[in-house]
């Protein structure tokens, strides 16, 4: 039992350590992100947004200095994410945990947030249920169903689509997208004429597109991960003669991101996507945000990861202002609930009940503007809550 006694002594010592750290004038924010590996690009964007916010607003809030500690999970690794979260709390004595590109990592760290009563800010991970894992978490990015259910309803009611075929990648987010689109499309009176699930790392979509074409659906909804795949599927649509002018092609924002559009070329013209942010969004704040981001990041345009990081820092700063620098989880989450502000993407709110983001979903079409392919916003749905979490509360 000596072990236990040592354990108890250690616990005591670290509790003393925590109060000592809080007496000083710093607020420590631990970032858990995918700095290395195949999702490094997302983390770079997010980090760019975080750095830009701190550059514009300084590192002092409510009389305290913000100190950032960065940790790498190197891909979807909940065991690493949970360990890093534990270490951030136990060893680095952080007051706030933030970041999270990927859902499994956010889920694992949420357990720690709940147990240690630490404020947790999710800057991307988009699966609905994450929010149920900790009552100290808030999300500033988006949820999958927020986008796909909005798109499904919009397509059936506003865009006159009566029949749709869905094509998604066969993994968690793909299945969620399929379920979200189909559910709301059917609820709004549309009919799903068929669906297909494609392998996640799929280099060639021609067979799948051909199958869709054989059914001659009025519209196609597709969800595939970013990277090289959007260009491949757009090419397959063009080759098989699925013209977005005749058959409507719907997707989420990942399909027509900045990099994807460059690779897709003119085959992307006419694709309709629903998304919460694009660097072409017309507002004063967004213009400043994009200019600032491009200046610090080799003229790369910010994407939704960057805006997630930026708004996440805003939430942390404003919550700290409200609590006058108090950093306990209860105070911070109470301050965050119901907070509303102007983001580069437009007005956003943290729902007071489900602690999740409420925002405008924009409907965009890929068009050529000044010789460049752009996502042009032509319609929007305001004040969208996550439908899954909202339904859970009822």
């Amino acid at each position, binding site marked *: 039992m000596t072990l236990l006694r040592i354990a108890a002594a250690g616990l005591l010592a*670290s509790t003393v350590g925590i109060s000592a750290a809080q007496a000083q004038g710093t607020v420590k924010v631990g970032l858990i992100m995918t*700095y290395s590996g195949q999702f490094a690009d997302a983390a770079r964007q997010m980090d760019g947004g975080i750095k830009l916010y701190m550059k514009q607003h300084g590192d002092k809030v409510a009389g305290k200095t913000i100190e950032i500690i960065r940790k*790498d999970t190197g*891909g979807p690794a909940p065991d690493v994410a949970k360990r890093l979260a534990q270490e951030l709390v136990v*060893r680095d004595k952080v007051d706030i945990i933030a970041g999270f590109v990927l859902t*499994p990592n956010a*889920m694992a760290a949420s357990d720690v947030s709940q147990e240690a009563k630490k404020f947790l800010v999710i800057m991307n991970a988009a699966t609905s249920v994450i929010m149920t894992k900790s009552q100290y978490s808030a999300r500033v990015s988006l949820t999958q169903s927020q986008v796909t259910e909005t798109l499904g309803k919009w397509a059936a009611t506003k865009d006159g689509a009566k029949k749709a075929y869905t094509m998604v990648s066969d993994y968690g987010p793909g299945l969620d997208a399929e379920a979200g689109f189909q559910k709301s499309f059917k609820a709004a009176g549309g009919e799903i004429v068929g669906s297909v699930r494609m392998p996640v790392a799929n280099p060639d979509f021609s067979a799948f597109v051909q199958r869709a074409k054989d059914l001659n659906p009025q519209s196609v909804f597709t969800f595939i991960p970013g990277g090289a795949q959007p260009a491949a599927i757009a090419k397959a649509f063009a080759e098989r003669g699925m013209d977005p002018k005749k058959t409507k092609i719907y997707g989420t924002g990942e399909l027509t991101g900045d990099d994807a559009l460059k690779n897709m070329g003119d085959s992307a013209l006419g694709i309709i996507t629903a998304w919460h942010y694009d660097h072409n969004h017309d507002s004063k704040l967004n213009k400043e945000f994009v200019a600032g981001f491009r200046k610090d990041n080799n003229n790369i345009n910010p994407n939704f990861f960057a805006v997630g990081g930026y708004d996440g820092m805003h939430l942390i700063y404003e919550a700290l202002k409200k609590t006058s620098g108090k950093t306990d989880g209860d105070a911070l989450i109470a301050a965050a609930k119901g907070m509303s502000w102007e983001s580069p993407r437009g007005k956003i709110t943290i729902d007071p009940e489900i602690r999740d983001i409420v925002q405008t979903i924009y409907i965009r079409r890929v068009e050529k503007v000044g010789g460049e392919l752009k996502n042009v916003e032509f319609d929007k749905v305001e004040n969208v809550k996550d439908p899954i979490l909202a339904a859970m509360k009822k």
Partner: protein
Amino acid sequence: MSIATPTQNPQSYLAAQERWRPVEIVFWLAALLPFVLFPDYLTLASQIAITGLFALSLDLILGYAGIVSLGHAAFFGIGAYTAGVLTKYGWGEPITGLLISAAVAALAGYLSSLVIARFRHLALIMITLGLGLLLHEIANSAHWLTGGSDGLQGMQVWPLLGMFKFDLYGYTAYTYSLIVLLIVFVMARRLIHSPFGLALRGIRENWTRMPAIGANRQAHIRKIYTIAAAMAGVAGALLAQTVGTVSLEAISFGRSADVLVMLVLGGAGRLYGGIVGAMIFMIARDQFSGIAPQYWYFWIGLLLIAVVMLLPNGVLGGLSALINRWRSRS
């Protein structure tokens, strides 16, 4: 690798090998140091112990029996998912969960050993790689059971022995992992220093001669492969229980590759090679990624190249060569 001198008979050779050396006792006592010296690092320590156990299981087949595997994470993942699914559906008792996971992984190991025992070298690499990828894809598509790429959610692990909750600081996690590692290690040690262990080394050294002197090569390989799979399953179950979730990463190619790297770093064919390799790899990763989260893999790569070039038998191989040279000089 010490070779029996002609004057020794096999029994006394094995008995001499099996005696616990002082340095080993020091090693295991040192494993308690994190409780006192680094109480902030206990979660890392528990994951090192788990990864060390996983590397030890690979060492049994790769280092001792010469079976090259690029898909060992399959059994780690099976163990992890078994433990995870058990706790999710109402049986959260850790120790029985561990045993059930070991049994399931052993069964999978036995079934695949029927194929494994027939092949060598490049064919083995391909087969193990294929099996690993296959299981990864099954885990991905069995979304209803495994949670797919979102990870397994809703695990409720009961307190260890009904008394010790898995805490934020990792006291329970490290104590639990360390005890399991020690028990499995003692078993592996006993196994390696038995005539069966000697036969395995014989198979590694001379594939064709062992059947000629009466050893049933395929039966031996099936046996050790099943045992190694059970051990990997225990490691996976430990990780699932101490972390409280399982993701596809547990069964991924990356994990198979990482454990191979650790074993090569530490020294294959040495009981402590896997554990030392896991320590070096994970501590280096923790420290390097603390300095530069983007570029830590660069340093790991550099470390690996340096070890392979300068110490072809791993860190432990290099150490023992150094000690031998020092002894022969004095």
